[in-house]
């Protein structure tokens, strides 16, 4: 509740209570906010989440390790390859697998494509919430190109279940490389058009500058990570601080904002998309030759020729498919830079065929608890803009 009103007798004021959600038009997912309002001004907000709680953590305790990748897809479903690779890297850390460089570069390309896909959604829907529908229809076409690249590699558009523990199931074919190269040529042109429509647009700037501002200390205390924290001024990026998958080989900057308001978050995401294109270009140039997978006998299926001719390969194949391979006992925490922030996987293994405990450190869940505080004192339309700019994905919020 706003400080100035804490001790006043509120029954004299004409206060409204309105219910924002769980089904509400800005298609961000389902969470409810009960707002106490004085006219247009929000005095107090209370968030309720859990409307799409699917019990991932309990579900993971009952599934063999390589069957957990489809669950991780559905965390932040706008950029599912990042979640998939994060989980596979956690398993590789547990097993102590060293990956070939080629695999790591291929993973970097796909993760950056996923980051672009997610930021396109967030930025275009933020513009839609301010009323600008044209940019959304133009830039969404580029997402279809990204979906086509995913389809060439793993067969699915959205919930990809991409890659295997140890690498990929097959090398990228020529069509995939061509599509990636074409995308890197075409996306900058389309994105420049989109930016020309929205970035310096008078109405967009008036609506987003100053809304939902958060200082760097408060953001850090609330556990913000990712573009939300970088817009507030702190340059914490897991790719730079704890590099994984050969990110240290690439040359990119960390864009940082000043005030932490919606416009800064939008601009940080835009700048990250340009960075992603540059990283993909660098990876394409420097792509090393080599095997497309590491040797992980516990989880990576042996080649079919060996399965049909050799005994050990047959036994391994059987054990992997039935989910009977054992892993070392231990606990490991691995985090990747998801599109919304630090996505962490805390895995405790007791040597059995399923995890003993798997906990997902979900950035959206931790960011959303600050929302009720951020909108206190603002008007209702600004509350919608703040929610859009924080990029809250319901699947990751509730897990």
């Amino acid at each position, binding site marked *: 509740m706003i400080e100035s009103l804490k001790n006043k007798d509120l029954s004299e004021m004409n206060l409204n209570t309105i219910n924002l959600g769980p089904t509400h038009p800005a298609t961000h997912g389902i969470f409810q906010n009960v707002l106490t309002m004085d006219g247009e001004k929000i005095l107090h907000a209370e968030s309720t989440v*859990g409307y799409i709680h699917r019990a991932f953590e309990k579900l993971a305790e009952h599934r063999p390790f390589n069957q957990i990748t489809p669950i991780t897809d559905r965390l932040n479903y706008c950029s599912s390859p990042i979640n998939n690779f994060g989980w596979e890297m956690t398993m590789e850390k547990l097993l102590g697998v060293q990956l070939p460089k080629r695999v790591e570069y291929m993973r970097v390309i796909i993760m950056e494509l996923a980051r672009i896909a997610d930021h396109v959604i967030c930025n275009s829907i933020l513009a839609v919430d301010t009323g600008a529908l044209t940019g959304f229809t133009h830039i969404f076409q580029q997402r279809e190109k990204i979906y086509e690249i995913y389809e060439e590699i793993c067969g699915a558009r959205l919930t990809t279940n991409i890659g295997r523990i140890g690498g990929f199931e097959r090398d990228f074919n020529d069509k995939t490389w061509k599509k990636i190269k074409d995308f890197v040529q075409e996306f900058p042109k389309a994105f420049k058009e989109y930016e020309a429509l929205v970035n310096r647009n008078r109405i967009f700037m008036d609506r987003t500058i100053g809304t939902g501002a958060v200082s760097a200390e408060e953001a850090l205390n609330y556990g913000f990570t990712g573009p939300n924290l970088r817009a507030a001024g702190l340059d*914490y990026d897991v790719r730079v601080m704890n590099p994984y998958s050969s990110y240290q080989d690439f040359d990119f900057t960390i864009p940082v904002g000043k005030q932490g308001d919606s416009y800064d978050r939008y601009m940080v995401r835009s700048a990250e998309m340009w960075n992603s294109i540059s990283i993909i270009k660098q990876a394409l140039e420097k792509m090393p030759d080599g095997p497309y997978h590491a040797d992980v006998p516990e989880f990576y299926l042996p080649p079919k020729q060996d399965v049909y001719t050799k005994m050990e390969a047959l036994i391994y194949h059987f054990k992997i498919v039935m989910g009977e391979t054992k892993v070392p006992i231990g606990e490991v925490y691995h985090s990747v830079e998801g599109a919304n922030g630090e996505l962490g996987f805390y895995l405790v293994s007791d040597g059995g065929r399923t995890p003993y405990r798997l906990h997902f450190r979900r950035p959206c869940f931790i960011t959303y608890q600050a929302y009720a505080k951020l909108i206190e004192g603002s008007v209702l339309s600004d509350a919608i803009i703040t929610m859009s700019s924080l990029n809250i994905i319901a699947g990751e919020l509730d897990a």
Partner: protein
Amino acid sequence: MELNNAEYTKVVDALKSRFPNSINDIGVPYETLTLSVDSAEIKNIIAFLASEELGFSFLTDVCGMHYESTDELGVVYHIHNLYTNTRIRLKTRLPKSKPEIDSVTSIFKSANWQERETYDFFGIIFKGHPDLRRILNMDEMDYFPLRKEYPLEDGTRTDKNDSMFGR
């Protein structure tokens, strides 16, 4: 035990000198410093870590655990020092009959909902939490689902044919 990392040695020495009886076990699995600590002292330990002297200013994660072999509950904290890039894991154990531990919401606001989630899943009571109630499950739920004794599926389901699922 031999800690090869200068940062880890500094942190462990500082903690040992300040809380000589509360550190039960020290390990470095997969290069992350892991300390098992007394649950009664956890708030003071985290406040000390978060202070200017040691600089662990970012709470990465709070999650619960159910240790089936000893039938105890526990809470695991991951804290991160952004200046020196050091990560620490703190583990505590709580008896199942009285799973109470201090809340660290006054030090890190990000612990608020994470502790509510831990309460929702395991039934661990966080003393001093401003608003401890269920967050992800329905309010009417009367058990704590992530404890090992409860099944994954819905117990009230009537349309699942057990004979077809090998049960």
